[in-house]
């Protein structure tokens, strides 16, 4: 997982001997099993979605391409749904779509959050007051419900990409708040003061001195945002406010609810999305807990 490696590079502070560095990395990762297990689970999910199309005919993720309502068998290991989708193909197609929603929202949220957090934290004054005020007001508003309004208004034309952007619209406040408070404490550190005194220009200070020290935080809040975004998108989709023709995991849940899969005893229809969603959230949860330990060394002792 290269996210973890980037964080690691910052942490180890790069002594020139790469053998030593590798050893330290290894030692550190052994002390942080959460991050390792979470990353391995996530890699497994990525492998499933990238290698899956080589073994499974992804055309069968569309309706009426398989015999409807058949229990898992050798031909259809995950069974088929009411409209004749092969649920194994749906898993292969749907998992990356759901990941895509989360990644789009996570990247947008972190970008906006970083820009606002850096600006507010570093400049201070009325800019800080304004940005913090907006974040605080928006944080009291229940995200899912506002997203329902947005999604209901554009329901007919939602694609996976717009879904990501819709979710991102209310995902940047928390990163902005945490990054701001981190920048506030970084700003007062001695080396930043030294850089200022030695005549370094503001952009240079931000990118050469503050950003590298912010990376562990960015990584932790990125994983957190992705997880929150996927949670929100699956919630919207389960209510019927998702991409109507794309078999994301949330839409599969939605269809299984609308067609009363459980009441009709079609257990395999819900097992596939539920299992994938549980693995996905556990891996994101473990990764963000692990990254949090790197970003906040104080947590390491509290949890041991």
């Amino acid at each position, binding site marked *: 997982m290269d996210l973890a490696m980037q964080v690691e590079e910052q942490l180890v502070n790069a002594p020139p001997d790469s053998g030593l560095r590798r050893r330290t990395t290894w030692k550190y990762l052994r002390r942080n099993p959460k991050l390792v297990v979470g990353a391995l689970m996530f890699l497994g999910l990525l492998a499933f979605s990238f290698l899956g199309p080589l073994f499974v005919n992804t055309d069968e993720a569309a309706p009426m391409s398989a015999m409807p309502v058949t229990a898992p068998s050798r031909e259809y290991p995950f069974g088929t749904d009411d409209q004749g989708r092969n649920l194994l193909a749906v898993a292969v197609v749907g998992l990356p779509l759901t990941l895509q929603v989360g990644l789009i929202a996570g990247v947008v949220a972190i970008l906006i959050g970083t820009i606002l957090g850096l600006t507010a934290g570093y400049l201070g004054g009325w800019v800080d007051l304004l940005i913090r005020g907006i974040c605080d*007001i928006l944080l*009291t*508003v*229940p995200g*899912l*419900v*506002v997203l*329902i*309004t*947005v999604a*209901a*208004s*554009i*329901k*007919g*034309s939602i694609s996976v990409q717009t879904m990501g952007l819709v979710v991102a619209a209310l995902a940047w406040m928390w990163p902005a708040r945490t990054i701001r408070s981190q920048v506030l404490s970084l700003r007062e550190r001695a080396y930043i003061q030294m850089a200022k005194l030695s005549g370094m220009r503001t952009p240079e200070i931000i990118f050469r001195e503050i950003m590298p020290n912010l990376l562990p935080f960015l990584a932790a809040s990125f994983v957190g945002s992705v997880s929150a975004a996927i*949670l929100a998108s*699956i*919630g919207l989709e*389960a*209510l*019927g*406010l998702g991409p109507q023709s794309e078999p994301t995991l949330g839409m599969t*849940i939605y269809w*299984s*609810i609308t067609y009363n899969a*459980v*009441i009709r*005893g079609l*257990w395999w229809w*819900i097992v596939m999305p*539920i299992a994938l*969603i*549980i693995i996905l*959230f*556990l891996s994101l*949860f473990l990764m963000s807990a692990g990254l949090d330990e790197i970003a906040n060394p104080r947590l390491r002792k*509290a949890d041991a």
Partner: protein
Amino acid sequence: MNLKYVVQRIGLFFVVVWGAATLNFFLPRLAPGDPVRSRLFAMMTQTGFQQSGVEEMVKAYQAKFGLDKPLWQQYLNYLWDTLHFDFGYSLSFFPNRALDLIMRALPWTIGLLTVTTILSFAIGTILGALIAWPRSPKILEWFLAPMLTLAAIPYYLLALILVYVFAFTLKWFPLSGGYQAGTLPQWSWGFVWDVIEHSILPALSIILAAIGSWAIGIRAMMVTTSGEDYMTFAEARGLKDKTIFSRYALRNAMLPQVTALALSLGHVVSGALIVEVVFTYPGVGSLLYNAIQTADYFIIYGVVFMVILTIALATLVVDLLYPLLDPRIRV
């Protein structure tokens, strides 16, 4: 607590509510498509209605809903209506007002969610405190991992599993609904029992999913209090273990939990929308779900506004009461 803080806080409440109303007004108007026209066309395709005269009908309806007036006037009218909780009529159940339908659904949701929130708070807090307590049996720690797993996944997935196992396969509980189909809501023992029977599975799925986060919260606070001087003093006095646990450790660790409880009671309306959908429970969630299915916009926006209003109200109350409860906070 000074007056300036109170005024500022109440001001913020109105800003949030006004913002929610404004969002409800402008978002549908920014969206492509004309709801009146699309609604009429949908009705025509359903009933095989004549195509001629549609434009006149669109005009007539737009005049009826005030859509032919300039935007600022529509906006002011809208704010005025919202101030009176007038969200317009339901499109699918036409003579019914959106507000009446929401009011009919609210007691179900509030009842279910208040009970489950308090139960999961109580169970989670006691469990988490016991796990953090050094002298409690080690077996308790085995509860933590499954509880955390349940907290990490969306709660409605658990609901789907519970329906399949306990209602479909074992037939211990009814499959769906809030009460036996065909009976009329009334105040009788039979009916109350029926309602309880129908709400056990939805309640269980909400409680199981929520316990973990309550347990984690209190556990962290218990670890902090265990290092305090008064704990050492209580032990030195030779007090009974039980007394130290409940009177000294738990009591001092409770405050953040109580705040969180108050805040989550503010979320009772929106807390479990999708669980209601899974169980076709007759609350706000199912109302919203059906409104989304039938593009019943006035209900969607009405529900959204009511949810934001209740949450803003709860946050306001907590923020105003908190300084009174905890004298250490000076605002």
